[in-house]
């Protein structure tokens, strides 16, 4: 009986949340669904075709694509290194490990990953200036929080046997980690890193909207000027890039688990 009350209560709460959401937002359905709006949307969609394919512009798009790829790759690599360093104090490596820094480090990781990449980019632009450097740092900082927590969980779930044998010989924590824990969790860590790279390529593509370089900056620029043909080309490049990175990452993860 208690079970059905709580699940009924849950369903009611959910319904209330959904209804309240639609109610309090003044959503412009009329504006969206009126015939006028649909017609103007059709016209708007039409402006995307044909996409601009002049060689000069395509060269710019290619450069932007390369910049976006570089941002996501370097950002993810930096994040993996930082995440590894942070995961060590953030994990309890064995039963009875005091791990005094665990809670503060976990709290820091939570803050890093709660703030979205775009917000980090907007903040870091103040220190690093406009351009892809701020975007790379923003990706690195946010992803370090994500990977740090994933790495710490992987370390805590690693089988304890090899580490215990080395600790019985009086070997220090760092060397126990390098010789016993890391070899066991490395494939998992690499898999997490590849998965985040897939995610980061999407994030990198749009960081430019706040001025952090890459395709996003190009997109925001041309959209602001209503160059819809050019915007279409940029969108196409984004889709291709995301698809290519997805495929590469999938292939790499398949290779790892061979």
């Amino acid at each position, binding site marked *: 009986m208690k079970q059905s009350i709580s699940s009924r209560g*849950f369903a009611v709460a959910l319904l209330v949340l959904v209804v309240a959401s639609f109610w309090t937002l*003044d959503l412009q359905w009329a504006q969206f669904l009126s015939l006028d*709006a649909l017609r103007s949307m059709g016209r708007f969609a039409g402006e995307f075709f044909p996409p601009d394919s002049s060689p000069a512009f395509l060269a710019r798009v290619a450069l932007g694509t390369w910049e976006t790829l570089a941002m996501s790759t370097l950002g993810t690599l930096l994040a993996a290194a930082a995440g590894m360093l942070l995961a060590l104090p953030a994990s309890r490596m064995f039963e009875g490990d005091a791990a005094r820094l665990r809670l503060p480090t976990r709290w820091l990781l939570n803050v890093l990953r*709660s703030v979205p990449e775009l*917000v980090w980019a907007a903040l870091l632009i103040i220190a690093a200036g406009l351009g892809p450097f701020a975007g790379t740092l923003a990706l690195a900082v946010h992803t370090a929080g994500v990977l740090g927590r994933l790495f710490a969980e992987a370390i805590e779930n690693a089988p304890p046997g090899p580490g215990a044998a080395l600790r019985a010989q009086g070997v220090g924590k760092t060397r126990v980690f390098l010789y016993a824990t890391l070899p066991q969790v490395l494939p998992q860590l690499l898999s997490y890193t590849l998965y985040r790279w897939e995610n980061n390529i999407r994030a990198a593509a749009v960081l430019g909207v*706040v001025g952090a370089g890459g395709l996003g900056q190009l997109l925001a620029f041309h959209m602001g000027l209503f160059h819809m043909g050019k915007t279409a080309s940029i969108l196409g490049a984004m889709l291709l890039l995301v698809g290519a990175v997805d495929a590469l990452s999938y292939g790499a993860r398949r290779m790892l688990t061979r």
Partner: protein
Amino acid sequence: MAASADLALTNGRARPAPSRDPAWLGRLAWLAVALVLLWPLAVATEFRPWALFDARSLHVSSQFLRSFWPPAHGPDFLLLVAHEAWRTVAIATAGLTLALLLAVPATLVSTHALSVSALSGRMARGPFWLRQAVRWGLIVLRSVPELVWALVFVRVVGLGPTAGVLAIALTYGGMLGKVYGEILESGDPHATETLLRNGSSRLQAFFFGLLPQNAAELTSYTVYRWECAIRSSVVLGFVGAGGLGQLLDGSMKMFSGGEVLTMLAVFVLLVALADRVSGGLRESLG
């Protein structure tokens, strides 16, 4: 080495020890490749960490950081932040609800588990291509970053939460559709196949076969995505879709560090709360 000396003595056969580690050259090669690839990446991203510490940059950063304290705590401002935080959650919830309206039918159409023609050998051509088309549609929806959708919708319907809700609805619809399909196809197909073979309609097979089997996993993923949607909705605010993100963007442009700190703190708390709620829900369902 005394250790190896006495071992070598007791060895009956004296097979010579290998002098080289066969993996050493490979490791050196990988290291060289990595360094060679790293250089163009650093150039392309204008990676200059020392630039963070030059005089001008330090001056600007320290000024901005100093303006963070004290965090803005006037009652009017706090009320505004609370209001916008609720709007952020509302945008996420409304967007996810619409995403469900999009994803559920798409999943029903595209999943192989409900294919009648596949019961007896290969799937017929028509239904197969229909399913592929729907799948490709979902892929396109989720490949376009939601920020781009939001930018487009802001042009069409103007600034405000509508653009954000629509952007989330489309992107998350694609995501949910894909993952729902994977969940449904990963379960044991026996119950559903039996229902279909005995003549029940596809909807019946879904409600009595697929859904009960996978309800926990489906709900768990949906709740997790709701939490992600809240984060997305803050990001979308930066392009004018309302909510906490728009407020944050405004305060950052005016270098009001105190307001930024308060909003960041509220946002981190909001995400933590959503994380706790979603975790609790997933536990009680699983």
